[in-house]
Every structure is written in C-alpha cells, then in structure tokens.
C-alpha cells in the first residue's frame, strides 16, 4: 500500500478501554424516536446514545424493531411512504433529517451491510469501485489503490486478487458478504450498520466476519443487529435489548449478559422467552 493511502486511512488512536458509558463520545444520539408502518407503531419513544468507535449490538425477538431502528439511522425508510416518524436522530450532533442534509451524503457516511449478501451484477472490482464512481472518482490508479485497500480491510484481497474482473456473483456466500463490507468501506464511512450480517453464512464465514468486526472497531463505529446472542456477546461492547419497539435495557455487554437489571432481559437471554 502506498504511503499516501496508509496516511489517509491511518487508524485513529486506539480508543480508550471500556470504562464508563457516560465517558464515551457519542456517534448517534436518538431522542424520542418513534416509527410507525402504516400507522402501526414499530419503535416507541427511543432515546439512546450510540458511542463512537465501539460495537453496539441490538438484540431482541423477531419484530421487536431492531432492524427498523438500524434502517432509520441511514434514512433507508425515506423511500417508503408508509413509514411515519417522530423524534430526532443526530449524527455527530447534527440532525440527520435537517433539510440541508443530503441523503446520499448521509448514506455514504453511514454504510450498511444487509442480511443477504447483495453484490451487484458486475465484477468484484466494479462492486468495490461502485460507491467511489458515484462520487466521481475516475482516476484508474486512485480506484485501484482504494479497491485494494478496501478488499484488504475486509480480509478478502488474498482470495480475490486474481479474479478482480470476474463476476462477484461467482463468490461464495461468505466471500460475497465480505465483498459487500469492502464495498461499503471503500467510500470511507464513519459508521457501519450491520443487519444480521452472518445469519445466512456458515460457521467459518461467520467467524471471519466477527473477526473483521473486531478489527474495524478501531477505525469506525459499528452498529450490529443480531439474533445470535453468543455473537452479540462475542463482538459487541454495548448491547441494547429491544422488545415490541421499546428499549428494555441498554448496558455494557458484559453487564447485560452476566448481570441483567431486569427480569425480562434475563428471560430473553437465558432463552425462557422467545
């Protein structure tokens, strides 16, 4: 990797060790956020902080609103007319629904990886370069460098470097998911939203993704939605438990899993309630 690139993408100083939630810098600030699909409430009055350069996991039973919450963070609901919203979301102190905010710009800053790997119908290289080209990056050398850096960051470079120009659809599921992560990283987001990123993958691919999440933490904020509580326990720093659109409990992951404050939380994480 060239010197310029390593400078540009130099990881910031390692964040301070987990200590006190109150001492963490905020990435997202949600206040009184309610969302409804077609009048049916999906999120009720959520107020919470998502700390910068940490992995925050959302857990909860199906339909509890955790994916809805994730999609609210990069305004992916905008295209859906049936969704109505109340309350505010601030990213680095700025309201993301403010009229001067450009949605495309917001989504570039807040990248997202979905449950099903969704590479585009083009080559591996073009997939990773997609977001960059949208921003008008045209120079071949610059693209080459960033593509290599992004694939390397997603721990995929060694597997695809000889097949950069063949179709991305020919990759295995786990490779595709890492390609999608590389594609998202290529536009250098500040936040990475992960919507059950490993639920469609085999155990080995899952391990690779989790490892990747731990590595990426040093340079960006990660928000993870997962059904898998072991996964939340393994990779996240903070965990929020949602139920029926409400925030039930939010604490450091160790605390939440070993010493939950509420009976509802304990029931869920010990499997006494679906």
């Amino acid at each position, binding site marked *: 990797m060239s010197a310029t690139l390593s400078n540009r993408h130099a990881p910031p100083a390692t964040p301070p060790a987990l200590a006190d939630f109150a001492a963490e810098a905020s990435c997202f600030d949600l206040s009184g956020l309610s969302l409804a699909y077609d009048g049916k409430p999906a999120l009720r009055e959520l107020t919470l902080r998502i700390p910068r350069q940490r992995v925050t996991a959302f857990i909860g039973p199906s339909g509890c609103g955790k994916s809805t919450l994730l999609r609210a963070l990069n305004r992916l609901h905008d*295209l859906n007319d049936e969704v109505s919203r109340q309350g505010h979301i601030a990213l680095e102190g700025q309201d993301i629904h403010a009229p001067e905010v450009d949605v495309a710009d917001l*989504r*570039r800053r807040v990248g997202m990886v979905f449950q099903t790997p969704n590479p585009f*119908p083009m080559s591996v290289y073009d997939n990773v370069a*997609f977001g960059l080209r949208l921003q008008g990056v045209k120079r071949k050398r610059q693209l080459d460098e960033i593509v290599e850096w992004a694939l390397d960051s997603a721990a995929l470079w060694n597997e695809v470097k000889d097949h950069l120009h063949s179709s991305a*659809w*020919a*990759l295995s599921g786990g490779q595709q998911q890492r390609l999608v992560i590389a594609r*998202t990283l290529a536009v250098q987001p500040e936040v990475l939203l992960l919507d059950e990123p490993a639920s469609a993958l085999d155990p080995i691919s899952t391990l690779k993704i989790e490892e990747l999440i731990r590595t990426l933490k040093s340079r960006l904020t990660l928000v993870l939605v997962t059904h898998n509580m072991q996964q939340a326990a393994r990779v996240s720093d903070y965990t929020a438990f949602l139920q029926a659109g409400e925030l039930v409990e939010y604490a450091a992951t160790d605390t939440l899993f070993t010493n939950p404050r509420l009976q509802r939380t304990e029931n869920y994480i010990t499997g006494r309630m679906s």
Partner: protein
Amino acid sequence: MKRWRRGEGGWPWLAAGSVAVSLLMVAALVALLGARGLAHFWPADVELVTLSDGSRFAGQRVRHVETRAETQAKAGGGARTQVLYLTGNRDLDGQYWRWVDAERITKRETPAGLIVLERQRWGEFIGRLVALREDGATQLTRDAGDDALWQALQARLARVEALRERREWLRENRVAPLARRLAAGGEADSQSQHAELTAQLKAARARIADVQRALARDSLVLESVDGRRLAQPLGEVLAAWRPNAMSPFAKLASWGQRLWAFLSEGPRAANGAGGVWPAIFGTVLMVLLMSLIVTPFGVLAAVYLNEVARQGPLISLVRIAVRNLAGVPSIVYGVFGLGVLVYGIGGSLDQWLFSEALPSPTFGTGGLLWASLTLALLTLPVVIVATEEGLARIPVHQREGALALGATRYETLRHVVLPMAMPAMLTGVILAVARAAGEVAPLMLVGAAKLAPQVPVDGEFPFLHLDSKFMHLGYHLYNVGFLGGDVERAMPLVYAIALLLVLVIAVLNLTAIFLRHHLRARHRGPYR
C-alpha cells in the same frame, strides 16, 4: 397397484407423453415443409409418355391420385389412378399441367435429349432443341449432335446472363440516378445543366438499347415431343438443363443452384415466379426496426409502472389494460395503424414536409416505418409484461444495497436494477420478435407490398427508405398461395416460403437467445 391408484407412476408418463406429442408435431411440421418445399427445386426426370391412342407428350411426373368415380363404380370399374404431369409449354398448349389416366399410358421413357428451359415468359418449356440461330441465320443444328448443340447453348446462355446483368447495372446506376436528378432538380438547375443531364440520360438509355439489341441476337428453335416447332429468343431464357442426362451429383448441384436463386433473387412477377430475397430482407428489416422501437418504449413503460409510479388501484388498472392489449386481434392494430399512423400522422407529415410531391403520398401511404410502428404497438404489451416481471423479481436488498452506498434512485436503476433485469427484457424482445415476424394481417393494411423487388436499403441518401413499401414473407406466402391462379404451381412455393418463414423466425429468435445467454454468462465466474 396402490401406487397407481393414488396417481403415482402414472403422471410422469402422461407429462412425458405430452412433451413427446408436441415435439412430434413440430418435427412433422418442419419435415412436411422441408420435404414439399425443398423437393420443388430438384430437377426431376422428364418422362416421354406415349398414350394408348398413340399421342405423345413429355412432362415431369408430379403426383397421382386414386379416384373412385361414381359412374365407374356403377359400371364396376372400381378405382382408377390419375397422374399429374407438369408439361410446361403454355405458349403451345395453353396449359401447364396435364392429368392422364394411368391405364391410358402405354409407354414411359426418359430420353437423354429432352431439355427443360426456364423462361421469363410462359414458364417452362419441355421438349427438344433443334437449332441455334444468330440474327435469324441458323448457326448450328442438331445434325452436329445433341451434345455439341447443348455445349453451344450453355456458352450462349452465359453470354446472355452477363448481358442481362449489365442491363440491370446500367438501369440502376446510370439511368435511375440521372432520371431522379432531373425529376428532383426542376428549376434549380440552370438551362445548360438541364440540357447536359438530358443528354447524359439519353446516352445511358442508348447504351441500354445496345445491350438489348445484343440480347436479342440469339434465338433458339425448339420442338415439342409431338413435333410442333417454336422460335424462342434466347434473351428470355433464364436457365436450361437436361435432367435425364444428369448424374445424381449434377442434379444435386443444380438443386443447390436453383435453391440459391430462389433465396437470393427478386421476384419476376406477383405470381411467385423468381426468388424471395426482397421478402426475406423485408421481413428481417421490419422485425429489427420493430425491436428497436418497442424495446426502449416497453422498458421505459415497465420501469414507470414498477419503479416510479405509486402502486395503487389506478396503476393496477393500467397494468390490467396493458395485459388485455396483448389479446387484441392483430387486424385491429392494422386498422389503427392505417387510420392513425398512415392517414393521420403520415398525411400530416406529407402536408408539412413533402407538399411539393402531393397528391402522390410520401408518408401518407403504407410503408416500412408504419408497419414497424404498428407491430411495435402490437408487441408492446409483451415487452412491458416481461420487463415488469423481471423488475419485480429483483430482490429489495439489491436496490437497498445501492441506495445504502449513496446512489440516487436513477443510479440504482441504471447500474443495478436494469442490468439485472436485462435477461427478462430480452425474453420480452424474443417473444415480441416471434409474434411480430409471424404477423401478416396488419401488414396488409400498413405497407406490405405484393411486389416490391427493390429492397428498402440502398446507396442513395438516406440509405434506409422508411417510406417505401416492402415485401414480407408471410404476406408473400398468402399472395403466392391464395391469390395466384395456378394452385398446382403455387403449392410447392407455399411450402418453401413457409419453411423459410419458420427458419427466419428461428434465426431471429436464436440470435436474441444467444444474446441473453451471453449476458447471463457474464455473471458466472471461473470459481465453480
């Protein structure tokens, strides 16, 4: 037994049987068209038939039928067989075919000296060659031997063929452009220019007259097998062969030549004589133009219905209407094309742009453009429905993936959704091509011509003449088969044209399928 009662064991056979029957029917269709159509070009032996009353005639045996005539059955005669011969010599006999009772035939021979001539007028001649004449003076007679005479005929036929080609070349490249310039120039040309052009045209016409004279130099003296003689100008003879003297290989070569002539030459008259090249060309060109028009329209309409419009009762209604359009009879589209496109739009275009040519219409009459547009309209629902289904099949997370990278809706559509829907669009185009290439009814109203030997593409600006009439295989088939007088003569041509139509559609479809396969294959890498 229990398995059978519950249907297990039976239904796969039923399903396989349906496929087998369908395949068999398609194979039988192609085999029938192939056998009947292609056999027409085979130089069959000429039989010299002697009848019981001593009269003789020569002809090619076409087929025979057994009839059980009422009167004969009463008389106890039973069935009798009648044989159909192609005897040619319409200028001598006034007829082209001859039915004879099989029992009246006493002798059938195939003498090597019998020749078949294909002529521009009067159809085939079957009989003997007596003499070759030049400017009315006999050059060579059959006293010199049949073979020597035959060789001389071949040499002269080659000369005549070259002269005919020269004449066509002069007409197309000398006379026609000059005549057009004179007609178009009008007052724009100065007096001297006009005079010069007129002189050039006169010179060109004189050269054609020279060629014409050279063509008229030779003539043949022919004799039918019953001894009647006939003088035949050689300039009107297109081909000559001696089927009885030909080896199977020579026959095969001759068959290939005649087939090629059928495919590559223009028609000589509306009755199906000559080739079908303009019809093949017209069909393919019209279908390609139709595809070029219908694809963008259909895809954009489908994109609107599926991606842009807010889904609701109105859009559902539009969707149902589009699907119902596919069921409207094609002749109705023809009427619409005639009324709205030809008379409405074409008539207005003529008044605005081609008013100097009125009252003779330019676009105000049926033509290539209107035919292509009418068929595009006809096939629009097919493309819309197929594209819409393709768009609807694209998973939501693919679109979201692009949006989450900061793509706009247009960029998502352009780079992710449309490429993924491409195979479905091409499926729509394939279905559209299949439907359009086989349509005849609307074309009769909006531009297909009975006889248009000039193809609508040439070296003259604008190269592609959208206003010109064109020939179409389907319409040609209808004309040859059902509007000509001579059914016996038309039948083999009908089979041949039908086979050709099937082949043309198959080739067009295969091209599109190949394209689709190629697009799909792009997304399969070397991994698996």
